[in-house]
């Protein structure tokens, strides 16, 4: 499967799971909103250009916004993590190894520790921005802080579960591919 087809398919699955499973699960607590869809942005191949990342991130966020009737909310957060992503990747992995051997960020491509840090930073960034935008409208500062932490925690749990349940096949970049 080509990267394009695979990622389109992936976006559809992530959005459907977010809208019809995670947004509908029984209410746990007002601070806990399980978010997973933005993992799509984190899983995009290394080869996508920075501008491409921004546009794809915007599109992914906007698609979710259509379903949740919050135009621009998730789009803004996704654009932010799409913009921050290359910087974090450059910081965390040596350029000559992973980026040339693997197609997309994964625990195997980057190693568990750098990959976890990558996920953690971007998840925190995404939630902080998203919940800040919500908070501008309504709520108190303490609520905002607790909600960011709780939501980040539940998201990390979901992401690592996903990572363990669906280990992506290692894709070496070869001349034939």
């Amino acid at each position, binding site marked *: 499967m080509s990267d394009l087809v695979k990622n389109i398919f992936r976006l559809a699955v992530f959005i459907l799971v977010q809208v019809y499973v995670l947004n*509908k699960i029984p*209410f746990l607590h*007002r601070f806990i909103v399980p978010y997973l869809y933005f993992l799509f942005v984190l899983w995009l191949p290394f080869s996508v250009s920075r*501008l491409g990342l921004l*546009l794809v991130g*915007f599109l992914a966020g906007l698609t979710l916004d259509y*379903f949740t009737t919050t*135009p*621009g909310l998730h789009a803004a957060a996704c654009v932010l993590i799409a*913009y921050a992503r290359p910087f974090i990747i450059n910081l965390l992995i040596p350029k000559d190894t992973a980026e040339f051997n693997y197609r997309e960020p994964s625990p195997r491509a980057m190693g568990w520790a750098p990959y976890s840090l990558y996920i953690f930073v971007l998840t925190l960034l995404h939630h902080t921005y998203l919940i800040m935008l919500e908070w501008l409208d309504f709520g108190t500062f303490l609520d905002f802080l607790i909600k960011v932490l709780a939501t980040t925690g539940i998201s990390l749990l979901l992401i690592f579960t996903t990572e363990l349940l669906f280990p992506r096949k290692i894709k070496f970049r070869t001349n034939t591919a």
Partner: protein
Amino acid sequence: MRNIFLFIRRYFTFIAFVLLQVFALWMLFKFNKLHHAAFLGVANEVTGTVNTQVDKLDDYFHQGEENQRVHRMNDSLLNLLQSNFTKTDTAQRLVTDSVMVDTVKGVRRYLWRDAKVVYNTVNSDKNYLQINRGSKFGIRDDMAVLNSDGAVVGYVINVSPNFSSVMSLLHVQSSVSASLKKTGDAGTIEWDGKDPRFVLLRGIAKSVEVKTGDTVLTSRYSYNFPADKMIGTVAQISSDPASGFYNLRIRTAVNFRNIQQVFVVENLQREEQLQLSRDTEKKVEQQKKPNR
């Protein structure tokens, strides 16, 4: 000039990032304030079709429960039938009614339409429902939405041809006028975004006697909601020390997690009422002027 181009090329990604952010935030602040946005109309049509398909599947899990509720509703309606009552009045006689309009029934004020919920959440602090009736079926903004027991769910805020968005009571911007059944005192139902089982009733003076378990109904003064429809029962009473009002927590009669079938209620005299109140204001304003 060359430097400007160089600058743009150098920071092109950053500029694109800023532009996309600004666009996203513009949408967020513009469309969230104005519910009549075209965006939501389009979104309704696109997501509505997907939601309908998923909802078809979801229905199988709730059928038994829903069936029971409908059956109970039927039961209560059947009990109201004329044939259940015998006339004890012995002085009856047969008369031919010459009036064309049925004067006993009166003029219809509320029209009920059935609808099905295709999407619903309770996890956000701004919860919307999507129903499978739109402007093609005569749904318009501000119509009341009640569940199959006749308890308040919310009101329509946006319609597209085939679907409508309903602002649920569980929305931090929602505000519905309500009254206590026992005393008739009116207040406003709001939500603090915390627990989806409870809403708040504000504006009830401390002088009013309130007990837990008291029923809260829709107010008689509402233009959208039919009077005396169930909202919930008082669950917790606390008084706000800063003002002369109670903070009442109301347990909602509707279980927002599993709403399946709803009724959309149209107040046929709403326009007339609104027109009258507008005219009254205008008239009062005009009368004021000569006096000064």
